[in-house]
């Protein structure tokens, strides 16, 4: 059984479109994250939710809006896509928000290509 799953795995779209990426975890964790990995493999945190509340919001354009309907889901909606948004987006989860004390479990990633 997949612990952290993301859909879709690949997303190819035109500039200016709006798209969403979904994430679900079945580990019973209460904290979920979104990371962006660029072409140089540098991984940067974007958002973190604990018990459906936003606790980390890094300097991310407000075109990116996370939504957490419940503790098991954290979706990422992106408006007005730009070329620079092309990257691999990873969802992750952990039990408790310990700010990095504990391991995080990652999804398989969503490769977003903006044309």
């Amino acid at each position, binding site marked *: 059984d997949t612990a*952290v799953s993301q859909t879709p795995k690949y997303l190819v779209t035109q500039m200016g479109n709006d798209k969403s990426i979904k994430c679900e975890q079945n580990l019973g964790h209460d904290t979920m*994250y979104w*990371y962006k990995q660029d072409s*140089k*493999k*540098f*991984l*940067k*945190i974007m958002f*973190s939710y604990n018990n459906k509340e936003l606790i*980390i919001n890094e300097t991310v354009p407000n075109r990116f809006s996370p939504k957490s309907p419940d503790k098991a889901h954290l979706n990422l909606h992106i408006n007005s896509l730009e070329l620079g948004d092309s990257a691999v987006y*990873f969802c*992750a989860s952990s039990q408790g928000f310990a*700010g*990095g*004390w*504990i*391991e*995080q*479990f*990652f*999804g*398989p*990633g969503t490769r977003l290509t903006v044309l």
Partner: protein
Amino acid sequence: SQQGEEDPQALSIQEGENATMNCSYKTSINNLQWYRQNSGRGLVHLILIRSNEREKHSGRLRVTLDTSKKSSSLLITASRAADTASYFCATRTISGSARQLTFGSGTQLTVLP
């Protein structure tokens, strides 16, 4: 700027050899974690070492931490082709608002059969 930076960026070795990867970081930390990422996959946690620990083992993995030099190393002994992956260090910073894991850009390890 990045908190953790891995060195080398790429490493290619023969199966059976040992692989050593290094990580340097800038600010004080609570702990340091190593993750592995296979091509096209998400990251998988390997090992966590706390700031008051100097060395930790897990199977064929050995991690060292030198807080005075702000550096850590990951040693994989008797490497296998299946160890081919990118390896990332991640640090949890102590001060400021950076109460999250900060990752480096990874070392790409290739183990040749």
